[in-house]
């Protein structure tokens, strides 16, 4: 049994949604309804579900990017929800995120060197020279070059931008990386490149991934464990083999049956 690096206990989060005539009324939407999960050190836990199932809310709440209504998030034994501003900021270095949309998640006015180096600057890691070297090494590791530091995000393709997003997250040498649909905006051919890159980096840097996705084909290839979300609840959880080979819930079976080309491409 490997060590648990991130653990969520009984998370709840609801949103008020305007409803009724002219939006005068409000209804409460439970985006997270008593969600508990454990991420093992060095492994990948995939959270799957449809739009609106609460999987992105879960990602943001785990990293304290959204305040929780209730529950606790234990990172290396510490409850993140109870940490004060500066103490939380210190921990954030170890908890990074790769976002879905490589077009929206990079500041268009910053050069790639600044984008990737900003975290190092904020956390005051190393001298200016050391930071520069780190950024260069990280960019090269994800398949870009030193010359790319001077360029702006719009000069890159979608796949290259996602590489920049990965470099930005990993240059801080985090322990946990939350990947929120990191390949769903990419072409299949680019998707395969990015998935393999993420797998290699996980090995090299001993990363633990929480991988949010609605694509069960992708999850099959990257995850060790799978958690299925439906309407804010975790309805099923287990090893990737057990979920795919013997799903217990009707909803999970339904999701698996929706995989395009399942029968025809299996041969």
């Amino acid at each position, binding site marked *: 049994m490997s060590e648990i690096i991130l653990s969520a206990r009984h998370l709840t989060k609801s949103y008020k949604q305007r409803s009724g005539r002219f939006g005068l009324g409000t209804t409460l939407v439970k985006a997270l309804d008593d969600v508990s999960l454990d991420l093992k050190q060095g492994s990948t836990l995939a959270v799957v579900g*449809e*739009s609106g199932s609460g999987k992105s809310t879960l990602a943001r709440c785990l990293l304290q990017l959204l305040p929780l209504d209730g529950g606790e998030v234990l990172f290396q034994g510490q409850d993140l929800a109870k940490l004060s501003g500066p103490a939380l900021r210190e921990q954030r270095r170890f908890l990074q995120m790769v976002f879905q949309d490589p077009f929206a998640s990079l500041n268009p006015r910053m050069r790639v060197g600044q984008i990737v180096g900003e975290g190092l600057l904020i956390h005051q890691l190393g001298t200016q020279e050391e930071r520069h070297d780190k950024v260069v090494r990280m960019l090269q590791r994800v398949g870009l070059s030193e010359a790319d530091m001077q360029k702006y995000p719009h000069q890159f393709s*979608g796949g290259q931008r996602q590489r920049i997003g990965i470099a930005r997250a990993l240059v801080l040498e985090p322990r946990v990386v939350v990947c929120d649909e990191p390949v769903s905006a990419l*072409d*299949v*051919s*680019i*998707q*395969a*490149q990015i*998935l*393999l890159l993420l797998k290699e980096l996980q090995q090299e840097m001993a990363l633990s991934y929480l991988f949010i996705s*609605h*694509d*069960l*084909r*992708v999850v*099959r*290839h990257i995850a060790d464990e799978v958690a299925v979300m439906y309407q804010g609840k975790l309805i099923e959880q287990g090893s*990737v083999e057990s979920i*795919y080979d013997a799903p217990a819930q009707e909803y999970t079976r*339904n*999701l*698996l*049956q*929706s*995989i*395009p*080309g*399942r*029968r*025809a*491409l*299996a*041969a």
Partner: protein
Amino acid sequence: MTELLRIEGLTVTPQNAPDKLLVNNVSFTLGSGKTTCVVGESGSGKSLTALSVMGLLSSQLRLAQGKVIFQGQDLVGISNDALRKIRGGRIGMIFQEPMTSLNPVLTIGKQISETLIVHQGLRGQALKARIAALLEQVGIPAGRASSYPDELSGGQRQRVMIAMSIACEPVMLIADEPTTALDVTVQAQILALLNKLKTRMNMAMLFITHDFGVVADIADDVVVMFRGEIVESGPVAEVLHNPQHPYTQALLACVPDADGKRPLKPIDYAWLNEGAAA
């Protein structure tokens, strides 16, 4: 097989760079009532091919050469008026983004009615009845005709788009990545709906996608495009299970399989370039 659409030597270039062949000498045929999938990555020219068929190329681009023969008539070079009668009438269209293809300030009933008024001159009770029938056909309660697009989910919006595109019972539907922006479960529902309509209306589909999984579910024939050219085409079973061209093989190998048994392999473009040179 009766031939419905024949594309011959289609070539598209930018207006200001006639040497750059975005679509290069593309030819294929689509049989009546059949589904042909055009597969390729971004920039392969698959969407431009579809847009050329409908005469909807942007003014920056030029259809340099080729014929688009639809029911025996060459659509290249005919007047805009004549084209407009065919588009939305005998040829229906749906696009990738159901979020942006609908007008946010008009009810969906109103938007569906436009085609019916323009092409069939329907009005009054007959128009209302037809809208209700179309909505039911795509699985939306007729009462939703008075809803605005923002009151619908992504999948429902794509259903509305489908209702609009089949309003005049087209013999051919052009679908440009209609399920790419949707969740897997909704995608499966939309593909099933398109398949059902295709059979019921004996409608041919020209379906653009980058996902071989989708191809396996709906195609009769497949056309694989790479850098503006067709590298391989044929019946779906042959292309999927016995791909001949190295690019088709590579594109298939980078689709993750649902059983996780086959290792992922990204496309090795350097190797493909060498292969092309040799």
